[in-house]
Structures are given as structure tokens and as C-alpha cells.
């Protein structure tokens, strides 16, 4: 039974790991095609590739639109610590959209630190200061966190006031949503003592979900590629990793370092322990990459499809019109898919975290036999 579940989890993990990479490959091909077709006809090719990459990456200002060559954007605070000059806090508007340097800091255009704030030392080398600027992603993150806390606290306050009445409206919907995650993901995933881990797992689910959804909204409060940023997914994965391994039972660690396999698989060469130890780290790594790649891919596809409109401008009115129609239809379709993906990725992350916790909480076999 246990081996079955292990194989099952492994296969599922493999599938889920592969799926986004296929997606990502498609996107890569997609963007490549877009850019090559664009290259043949217009000189805006670089702009579109840049536009997509710029969106997917972080930024020091929140760019909303460009009108008549003027950038409309919300400047965000830059917080950097230089080893030579100490702390600096200033508005990113000081960079004038990356065209100017300020206080010795500038936004790099070099291959290595592209789009990041750097300072230049005497030798002319670019040095990266300690940079905790409130970037677009960081700002969006804080916004969505505040929103999430607001929503959940609103719901929980309704329960604090009166838990016995049946909830209506928004609170009722949230209750249904929370309970579906609680009953269908966490309970079967973690197993026996699911109650201890439920609050954390619910938080992870709704944190990922709200950021995914906000990422789909194209205008100001949303649109940032938060969960498609590897720093975000890394922190999430590390949190899950810590919780899984800190709540591991003796049996869990015994199965890693001294698994129940023929002795020659572990004595001269610790083959199985090595595999198990690698497995400990690949699980959260897969979580990190999966979420990151899926959301990144979704954003890339939408941007690539929208870009079609601008790429085909020079191909004549008829082509442009038909491509525009196609682009809009595809974009709408992909946006719906992305809504689904926003849920599925939050679901998968939570489910796998729950399963990993459940696997780390295993009881020794002997007890099972007695019971």
C-alpha cells in the first residue's frame, strides 16, 4: 500500500513536472516564431521580445502605459545598501526610466545584471549593491498579502461574531472554498494529524491563488508576475521543505538513511540512501519549478498572443485585422485556461505539500502490523 502511494506520488510529480516544461517549450517556440516573423518585417522585433521579458522580469517602477513616447508609470521606492556609501532610499523616478544614473547607481544594461541596479567602482566594473528595493513584484506581493489578510480576517471575524448561523454572500463562498481545500486536499493528503498543518497549508493555497489571480489582471493592482518569479516560489518551497523535514518522524528519517531494501543496496555503496536524500531535495525543488514555470508560461503565452496584433501591423490591414481577431480569441481562451491554471497550481502546490507532510509523518510498520 505504502509503495503504491509512493509510486503514485512519484508518477504524479513527474507528470506535473514535465507538463509545465512542455508548456514552457511551446512558449519558447511561440515567442521565437513571433520574433522571427517580426524580424522579417519590422524593426520592432526586439521591442516585443524585450517587452515580454521585461514583463516577466521584475522592475523598479510599475509601468502602466506608454503614450506618445512618454512612459506612464508609478515610481516605487529603491532601497539599496552600498558597501562604500551605505544605505540609500530614493524614488525610482530618479532613474528617469533607466536613462539616468542617480547617486552613483544606475539600472544596468549589461548582460550580467540586466535591469538591476548597479554601482560602478573605480575600475569600471559593475557591482551589485544589497538591493531590497520595493520592486514591482515586491510591491504587488505586499498588496496581495494585505488583500489576502483582509479577506481572510473578514471571513474569520464573521465566525468570531457568530459561528452558528449559516454564512451568506461572500463569506459563504469563501467558506465553501476554504472547506473544499480543507476537506479535499489537506485531509486526505496529510492524513492523521491534518489539523495541525491545515492553517499553514490553507495559507499557502490562498497565497498562491490570490497572487495567480492578481497576475491575470492586466491593469495596475494586478499584472505583476509574482508567482512566476523564482524567488517567490523558492521561499514557498523552502517553507514547505522546512515543515516537511521538521515534522518528520523517526520512521521517515530511518527510511531515508536506512531504507528497507536488500543490504547490498546500502552497505558498500549507499545507493538507496543517496537516492532518498536526493529525493528529499527534489520534492520541494519540483514544487518551486512547477509553480514558477506554469505561471511564467501563462504570462508569456498571453503576452505573445497580444503581441501578434502589433507584429502584424506592417503586414497590411487584412492580415492585421484577421490576426487581431485570432489574437483576441486566443487570448480570451488562454485567459480562461490561465484562470484554471491559477487554481490548479495552487491546488497542486498545496496537495503535494500536504502529501509530503503526510509522508513525513509515517508511523513505523510494526505498529501498523499490531494495529
Amino acid at each position, binding site marked *: 500500500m505504502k509503495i503504491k502511494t509512493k509510486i503514485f506520488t512519484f508518477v504524479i510529480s513527474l507528470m506535473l513536472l514535465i507538463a509545465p516544461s512542455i508548456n514552457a517549450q511551446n512558449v519558447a517556440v511561440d515567442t521565437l516564431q513571433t520574433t522571427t516573423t517580426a524580424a522579417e518585417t519590422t524593426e520592432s522585433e526586439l521591442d516585443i521580445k524585450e517587452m515580454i*521579458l521585461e514583463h*516577466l*522580469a*521584475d522592475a523598479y517602477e510599475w509601468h502602466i502605459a506608454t503614450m506618445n513616447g512618454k512612459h506612464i508609470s508609478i515610481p516605487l521606492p529603491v*532601497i539599496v545598501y552600498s558597501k562604500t556609501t551605505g544605505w540609500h532610499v530614493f524614488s525610482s523616478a530618479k532613474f528617469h526610466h533607466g536613462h539616468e544614473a542617480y547617486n552613483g547607481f544606475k539600472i544596468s544594461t549589461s548582460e550580467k545584471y*540586466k*535591469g*538591476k541596479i548597479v554601482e560602478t567602482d573605480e575600475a569600471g566594473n559593475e557591482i551589485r549593491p*544589497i*538591493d*531590497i*528595493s*520595493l*520592486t514591482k*513584484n*515586491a510591491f504587488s*506581493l*505586499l498588496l496581495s*498579502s494585505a488583500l*489576502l*489578510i483582509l479577506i*481572510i*480576517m473578514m*471571513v*474569520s471575524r464573521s*465566525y*468570531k461574531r457568530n*459561528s*452558528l448561523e*449559516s454564512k451568506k454572500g461572500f463569506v459563504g463562498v469563501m*467558506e465553501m472554498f*476554504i*472547506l473544499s481545500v*480543507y476537506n479535499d486536499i489537506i485531509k486526505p493528503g496529510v492524513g492523521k494529524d491534518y*489539523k495541525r498543518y*491545515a*492553517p*499553514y497549508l*490553507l*495559507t499557502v493555497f*490562498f*497565497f498562491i491563488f490570490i497572487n495567480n489571480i492578481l497576475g491575470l489582471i492586466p491593469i495596475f493592482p494586478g499584472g505583476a508576475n509574482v508567482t512566476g*518569479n*523564482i*524567488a*517567490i516560489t*523558492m*521561499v*514557498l518551497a523552502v*517553507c514547505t521543505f522546512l515543515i516537511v523535514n521538521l515534522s518528520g518522524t523517526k520512521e521517515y528519517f530511518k527510511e531515508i538513511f536506512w531504507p528497507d531494501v536488500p543490504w547490498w543496496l546500502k552497505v558498500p555503496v549507499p545507493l538507496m540512501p543517496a537516492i532518498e536524500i536526493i529525493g528529499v531535495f527534489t520534492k520541494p525543488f519540483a514544487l518551486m519549478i512547477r509553480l514558477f514555470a506554469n505561471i*511564467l508560461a501563462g504570462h508569456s503565452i498571453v503576452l505573445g498572443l497580444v503581441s501578434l496584433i502589433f507584429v502584424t501591423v506592417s503586414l497590411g490591414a487584412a492580415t492585421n485585422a484577421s490576426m487581431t481577431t485570432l489574437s483576441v480569441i486566443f487570448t480570451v481562451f488562454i485567459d480562461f485556461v490561465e484562470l484554471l491554471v491559477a487554481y490548479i497550481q495552487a491546488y497542486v502546490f498545496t496537495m503535494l505539500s500536504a502529501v509530503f507532510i503526510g509522508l513525513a509523518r509515517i508511523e513505523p510498520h510494526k505498529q501498523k502490523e499490531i494495529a
Partner: protein
Amino acid sequence: MSLLTPDLGLVFWMLVAFGIVVFVLVKFGFPVIIKGVEDRNKFIDDSLLAAKQAQEELANVKATSEELLNQARLEQANILADAAKSRDKIVEAAKGKASEEAAKIIDLAREQIQLEKEDAIRQIRREVGLLSVDIAEKVLRNSLSEEKEQMNMIDRLLDEMNIPKS
């Protein structure tokens, strides 16, 4: 490639934001909601149980009242039967007493009659005696109309009286 290298600044903000979110929601958010839902579920379960119990109790009460009613009916029948029996007994007793009384009265009457009869007989006897004396007197007077006969008579009587003396 920059997409695949986690930016330290963002990691810092993520740690801050996610830390706060986890702290607030794990401490004040989700447990309250889950507890609320569980409380409500428990309340509903309890209510259902209570309703079921009440129903059972009602059924019990119904059964008890039915039983009581039956018992009452039985008792009523018993009482009625008893009443009939005692009535019969009383009637019987009354009948017996009455016949006894009647017998007594009859006996008394008989005795009375006897007494009266004896009385009457005695009176008649007395009458008859007197009559016979009268008759005897008349007869005697008739037969003793002559002197001689009177003398005879006296003699005889004297004789009769002397005999026992002798």
C-alpha cells in the same frame, strides 16, 4: 537567465510578506474559520441528535400513554365486572335476607296464628264448658223436677263423694 536566478531583494520581501501572512492567518485567520465551521457542524449534529431523541421520547410518551389508556380501559372493565359481581352479590344477599325475613315473618305469623288458634280453642272450650254446664243445668233441672229424683241425685252424689273417702 536572470529569470532563473532568485533576486535577493525579492526573497527578502517575500520572507517578510509571507511571514506576516502566515503568522496572521495561522494564528487568527484559518483556525477561527475552521473552528467556527466545526462548531456549527457539531451544533447541527447535536441538534439533529436532540431532535431524534425528542422524537423517540415522543414515541415513548405515545406508547406510554397508549399503555396507560389500555390499562385504564382494562381497569375500567375490571371495575365494571367487579361492580356487576358485587351488585349480584348484594342482590343475592338481599334476596336471601328478604326470603329469610319473609320466612321469619311467616313463622311469626304462623306462631301467632297458632297462639290465636289455641286461644280460640281455649275460648271455645270455655264456651263449650259453659254451654255444657248450662245444658247440663237445663237437663238437670228437667230431670230434677220431681222430688224423688232430686233425692236420688243427692244420694248418688253423696255416694260418689263417699267412695273416695272409704
